């Protein structure tokens, strides 16, 4: 919400005021009281329903994002404001009666849909800020599984570099990955790196160097191995609990501080890396939660709105008929 919305706000207020005044006048004048079938009632009903149809078309618009039918932003604003307006208009249409079975259901659906929409709009204003602030290492939600897997593999490798072979299964990678990854065809094994432009501009492409292989003895690496298998790997695989062990930043820090005391200094960089992997996993958990909040309401809003359109159309047909 910012001043770019001002045009819509003013327009909506005007429409609302005009229709409210019109309703009051009409309600007073009509012999049988405000009714859906009267002329003004039909005007309200048709305009309210057409606002709802426009709002529902947003879903269709998103399926053809490149067709030049108007900017997505304009459609979104229209969806919000016209959708909001549709509720009072439908109230005016029905004269604040709920009517019979079908019309009651449609009325309740309207209320729920518009209410959930307002709720969602508020969430969408507030939660992105929270996410931006709380999850600096955010990634794409749908890919969190893959990213977690990559983190797990990275952690496995780090621990193997310190403790030696752990017999952990290397998982297969599938799919066409982004970032130019897909471009690679198998290249000769001991290829010399291509001589590209010396000094890549501003250090943008610092290639991740292979982690140092430390390889401690069995005795020395035991604390890390124990810790890794008992706590950390499970945490990386399925970080279900927020408050348990590594899910809590304080406890994670303490656990690693304890480990640091038990392990020789040469392993400390690896421990730091593992701690940062834990941190990233935790952030991804937080992101998942926030994302579900941010999108969960849609599971109510969308199906109910489609049901609303369907039933509303049936109601309109039946009411006009009878």
């Amino acid at each position: 919400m910012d001043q770019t919305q001002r045009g819509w706000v003013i327009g909506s207020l005007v429409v609302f005021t005009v229709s409210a005044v019109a309703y009051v006048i009409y309600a007073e004048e009509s012999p049988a009281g405000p009714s859906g079938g009267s002329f003004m009632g039909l005007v309200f009903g048709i305009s309210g329903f057409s606002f709802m149809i426009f709002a529902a078309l947003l879903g269709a618009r998103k399926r053809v994002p490149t067709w030049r039918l108007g900017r997505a932003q304009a459609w979104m604003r229209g969806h919000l404001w016209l959708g909001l307006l549709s509720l009072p208009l439908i109230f005016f249409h029905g004269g604040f009666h709920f009517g019979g079975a079908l019309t009651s259901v449609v009325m309740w659906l309207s209320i729920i849909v518009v209410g959930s929409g307002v709720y969602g709009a508020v969430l969408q204003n507030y939660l992105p800020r929270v996410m931006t602030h709380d999850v600096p290492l955010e990634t794409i939600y749908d890919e969190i599984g893959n990213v977690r897997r990559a983190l797990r593999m990275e952690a496995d490798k780090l621990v193997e570099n310190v403790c030696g072979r752990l017999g952990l299964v290397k998982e297969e990678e599938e799919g066409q990955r982004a970032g130019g990854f897909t471009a690679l065809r198998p290249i000769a094994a001991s290829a010399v790196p291509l001589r590209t432009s010396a000094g890549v501009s501003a250090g943008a492409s610092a290639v991740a160097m292979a982690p140092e292989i430390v390889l401690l003895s069995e005795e020395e690496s035991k604390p890390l191995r124990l810790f890794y298998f008992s706590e950390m790997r499970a945490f990386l695989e399925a970080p279900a609990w927020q408050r348990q062990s590594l899910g809590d930043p304080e406890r994670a820090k303490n656990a690693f501080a304890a480990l640091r005391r038990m392990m020789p200094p040469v392993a400390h960089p690896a421990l730091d890396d593992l701690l940062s992997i834990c941190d990233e996993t935790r952030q991804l958990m937080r992101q998942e939660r926030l994302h579900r909040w941010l999108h969960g309401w849609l599971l109510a809003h969308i199906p109910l709105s489609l049901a609303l359109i369907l039933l509303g159309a049936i109601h309109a047909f039946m009411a006009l008929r009878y």
Partner: protein
Amino acid sequence: MARTRTTKSVAQRIDLNYFKRATPFKRLRLLLVVGIPLLALGWLVWRGVMRDSRVYSSGNLSNSHAVFERQCAACHVQKAGEFSEQAADSACLACHDGPVHHEEQVKADVPKCATCHVEHRGRIDIVAGSNISCSQCHSNLKVAAGQLPYAAHIQSLEDGHPEVAVKRDNFKDPGTILLNHNVHMKLIRRGPNGPLVQMECWDCHRPEAAKGSWPYADASYVDAKVTYESKDVLLPVKAGWLWPRHSMGRAYMAPVQFSTACAACHLLTFDKRFDVGVPHDKPEVVHAFLVKKFQEYIAAHPAEVRVVREPARDLTGKPLLPEVRVLTPAQWVSERTADAEQLLWRKTCKQCHALNAVKDSSLPHVAEARLTQRWMPHARFDHDAHRGFSCVGCHPGALASKETSDVLVPDLANCKTCHAPGPEHAESRCFECHTYHDWSKRKEVKPTFTLPALSRGK
């Protein structure tokens, strides 16, 4: 060894086609998006299979039509080839008759049944139309030509409703029976049952259907047949168009009759020789009765033909009659008849009636009583609904009224003390007292509706 994070390494974690994959969220959304509308549709289909169209109803039916809740087709008639299945007037008229309101009404402005009788508003009284149903014409009533005999700007009882017609413009009761309510309501010295009688309204004024004995009736007059017709007595009722109330016979007070209200005190005796009074009938009948009576008497008492002058009875100035006269029976009868008639025409009957001399006739003409039976022809009033109230509460004028011409019907303000808008007042909408349909033109509808088994729909 710090973990490095570069744009490329971050991007390479991402599957290029991630956004095309089905995620649990998308699957659930699809499921709901298909499922919930299907559910809604299924509900309607189920109701359709059950032949229950009530889902599409916008409200329950009124009290009187509640039994047809499932018979949509009773009112929603589909004309062949048309889309609309709105409740047509023809459907209403199949059971009801809704006679025209007024012949002068512009045909195009005649509202449909449903305009005022709104269904699907729940268990209400469907007859109870809103004020706007009436005021949509009456708030600005116009006539094509001529003067409008009615008030033209009536919105509601409180707004623009004219005063009761008989209370306007010094209207006078056209009745010719002389009656002084005041005298009758005071303590009466001499009554039939003894001195100091206090009469009550109920003693004379009762609705037709009321039971109970009349305290001031005379049985012989009650049973007697009269030759005058009620149309000679009563003004014609012009309110036949009003919908008769259920409490028939109790709505209005029956016209006051001599036999039941007056006879006990107002004796129609005419001669010392007889106890009976003359019949309360036309002068001709009275004359004939008198003649007959005297004839019978003289036949039974032939010695009476000898009339002895009463010494103390003559009035001054009158020529003296011989002390004894012997009359023929006919003469005696006519003499006695004349005396009785003089008493009657000049005193007894004249006490209440307006008698006019008729040229070339010895018998006077009794003016028509012209009792008003219906004071408010355009509205209906039900005394039975107000039976809890004392008569003088609304008719205080009766106690003080001395003239027949006083109109004792209460004015509109009296009604408005109770009948006003708002929940703490009595009903004040138009339909409470007025009707739209001219029930005098009512046609009887031949009932054709059959009630199929209620569990099934159409």
